[in-house]
């Protein structure tokens, strides 16, 4: 009996062991991130799985441990430094206590979110002769399964193992020698990853691509300058019959995705050459626009052009924020868009129809946006050989810095700048890989003003502003506890979301070119801020044990 019992126990033990192994093996093989995980956005507050926090790019966290009342006690917990030149413009991915972040020069790291210690480092061997207009930067990873996806400065897209940083596949998007580069964070959904590119200052033809996450094979491409097969092609007229072939329209900031509509929303860049429009008369679709593309096919569902015939370098490569908002007493599924041209727009998400467009900074190029969506231009606002003063300047009312949206307050928080410029233009000639701007801009310093602004999305009017001492390139994060995190002049700051009152700041020592993220770990809420080549994690002090020091 005893022997039988012992044998039974041994068999049971072996079976348990086999079962455990099977479970372990199953867990080891299970993908770390599913489409549903990403779709859930920030519902699981230990995670941050897309550039914008969720598919709607609201950058609004449900976390409430850090509040307007206790934020003054926020202190650094650790710092991670890249030991390189350059700067962070990236938003990290956060998953299971690990931070995955991309940096300058196509470097990337996995970092222990508890301590800031490096787990692995990825470095791409970049070729000589890169053509990058505005910094050798990268804005982050997309994640799906066990894979991290990123664009590269030499215009490739790569998949990297989350576990080791090993390269899994590498696909060329375009030949970098012709002025193409990759800087935006891709956006992953289902089995695809959508990636944008940069290069409109070098006469590229802009596009948005989708790739198979498993194989790296391109699934679809949408060109942002309409070719002969596209109805929008008639909007390319003028001196150069082939203007559309090097008409710009890059896609260098991450867009958003609506899983219900299966639509990708993405902003497109300036037309090229930037300031000389005679080569390309017409509206120049689909530059300086937002396009809504079918996620499976890349087919254009609708477009809205913010700046028809852009001659001011006003890329519409800001982040489209998807939100359900009440406007005029009606619940609208909207796309909210604070544009570089100085206007704030609300569009119908399913159709692209304009709900309203109102200036959120000082503008001088358009009187207003007509109900049909077209701007009413003011005379004397076109660039010229003698120079024309226009507001905003080429860097615009806002730029790539991400806004955030607080649904409970109905406020969109955006880093804003008021600056006018004198726009000069001249005839230019396209040569592959060479600058193709057709002009330049001098900034008029006397009009310079910058600040963090809260826009009431029900009306498009400004609710509050916190003025900055200098222009800022920092993105914004808000939390359900009523806080907004942003900053300027190296100061990482927290504000009261309702009033805009500054509640806390910390001088990071370098300019801010990215936005903050937040996550829960071991029962503590962390706020992560990249600055220069350093990432700093902040949290409230750990609770002191009763009777402790």
């Amino acid at each position, binding site marked *: 009996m005893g022997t039988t019992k012992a044998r039974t126990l041994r068999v049971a033990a072996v079976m348990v062991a086999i079962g455990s192994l099977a479970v372990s093996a199953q867990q080891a093989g299970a993908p770390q991130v599913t489409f549903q995980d990403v779709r859930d956005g920030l519902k699981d507050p230990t995670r941050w799985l897309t550039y914008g926090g969720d598919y709607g790019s609201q950058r609004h966290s449900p976390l409430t441990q850090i509040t307007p009342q206790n934020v003054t006690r926020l202190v650094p917990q650790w710092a991670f430094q890249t030991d390189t030149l350059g700067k962070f413009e990236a938003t990290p991915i956060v998953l299971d206590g690990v931070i995955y972040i991309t940096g300058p020069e196509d470097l990337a790291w996995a970092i222990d979110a508890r301590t800031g210690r490096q787990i692995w480092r990825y470095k791409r061997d970049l070729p*000589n*002769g890169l*053509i*990058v*207009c505005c910094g050798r930067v990268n804005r982050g990873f997309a994640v799906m399964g066990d894979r991290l996806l990123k664009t590269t400065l030499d215009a490739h897209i790569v998949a990297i193992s989350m576990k080791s940083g090993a390269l899994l596949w590498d696909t060329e998007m375009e030949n970098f*020698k012709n002025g193409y580069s990759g800087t935006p964070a891709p956006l992953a959904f289902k089995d695809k990853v959508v990636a944008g590119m940069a290069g409109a*200052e070098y006469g590229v033809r802009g596009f948005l691509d989708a790739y198979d996450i498993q194989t790296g094979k391109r699934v679809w491409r949408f060109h942002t300058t309409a070719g002969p097969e596209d109805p929008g092609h008639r909007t390319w007229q003028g001196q150069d019959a082939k203007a559309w072939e090097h008409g710009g329209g890059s896609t260098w900031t991450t867009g958003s995705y609506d899983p219900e509509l299966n639509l990708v929303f993405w902003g497109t860049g300036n037309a090229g050459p930037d300031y000389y429009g005679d080569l390309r008369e017409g509206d120049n679709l689909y530059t300086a626009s937002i396009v809504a593309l079918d996620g499976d096919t890349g087919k254009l569902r609708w477009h809205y052009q913010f700046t028809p015939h852009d001659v001011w370098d006003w890329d519409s490569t800001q982040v489209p924020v998807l939100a359900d908002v009440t406007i005029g007493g009606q619940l609208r599924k909207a796309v909210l868009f604070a544009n570089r041209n100085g206007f704030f727009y609300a569009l119908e998400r399913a159709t692209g129809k304009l709900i309203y467009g109102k200036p959120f900074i000082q503008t001088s190029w358009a009187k207003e946006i007509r109900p049909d969506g077209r701007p009413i231009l003011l005379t004397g606002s076109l660039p*010229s*050989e*003698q*120079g024309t003063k226009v507001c905003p300047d080429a860097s615009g009312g806002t730029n790539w810095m991400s806004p955030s949206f607080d649904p409970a307050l109905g406020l969109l928080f955006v880093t804003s700048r008021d600056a006018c410029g*004198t726009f*000069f*233009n*001249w*005839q230019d*000639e396209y*040569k592959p*890989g*060479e*600058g193709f*701007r057709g*002009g*330049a*801009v*001098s900034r008029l310093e006397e009009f310079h003003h910058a600040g963090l602004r809260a826009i009431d999305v029900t009306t498009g009017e400004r609710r509050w502003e916190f003025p*900055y*001492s*200098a222009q800022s390139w920092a993105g914004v994060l808000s939390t359900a506890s009523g806080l907004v995190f942003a900053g*300027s*002049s*190296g*100061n990482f*700051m927290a504000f009261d979301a309702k009033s805009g009152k*500054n509640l806390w*700041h910390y*001088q990071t020592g370098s300019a801010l070119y990215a936005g903050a993220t937040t996550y829960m770990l071991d029962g503590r809420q962390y706020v992560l801020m990249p600055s220069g080549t350093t990432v700093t994690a902040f949290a409230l002090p750990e609770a002191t044990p009763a009777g402790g020091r």
Partner: protein
Amino acid sequence: MKHNWPIPVVAALWLIAQAVVLTQAPGANPQTAGAGRAETRPTKNPLEGNRDAIRTGGAMFRTRCAGCHGPDARGDRGPDLTGLWASGVTDDRIFDTVRKGVPGSEMPGADPLRVPDREIWQVLAYARTLAESTPPQAFSGTPENGERIFQKTCRTCHMVNGTGGELGPDLSRIGSGRPRAALTKKIRTPSDKIRPGYEPVTLVLRSGQRIRAVKKNEDEFSIQVMDMRQRVQGYLKADLTEVVADKQSVMPAYGPDQLSPGDLDDLLSYLSTLRGPDSARR
């Protein structure tokens, strides 16, 4: 582990490293647009006299050069360019200066990724149309007397070749092409245009004490200044009741009553001799 390399090996490695650095320099990469074409670049401006180039170059000059060299190229913060050609400077040398900039000065180089060779030639084609046929007139004053005036009046606040004060800008290179009119203006009416880094401010402390200073830096919560004792110091704005942006420069205006036209000539003549650190004094 520390390696003790034999000296010849180190020398050889150094030479190889230099060769690599040279071949990797932007100018040596044939793929870099517009750069590194010194070997094929013409020595004379191929676009000189070309009407289209002059028109385009004029727009480029107004946006990229006029801020420092003045809209008529007669100089402001930067040198007068109208006498360059009459002084015998070649197109090729001017091109190089535009491409590479002037180290140690505010003149930046033109990034080959942003400014192809063609655009530099276009700017030079335009600038040539503004050129004088004779070199600029030399300063006529007595530099020795000018130096005496400088030592007595200016050196408390301005440094030259490592000696003097630092409340105002270092003037060690002020003579390298800065035109007479611009220098006169700085002396007679210094508040007309004040450079960043020297903007006058008055800080009002909670005690009521007022501190006059020039601003070195500022953010939302603090300000960094040099006070009139030439001491650099930072202040928290929370400790101040007011930060006044003054209109008057901390440099006094030296009108004809304070500095006669003759003394001004002498001072300008002395300043025109200042072309950078004096190697003999190092």
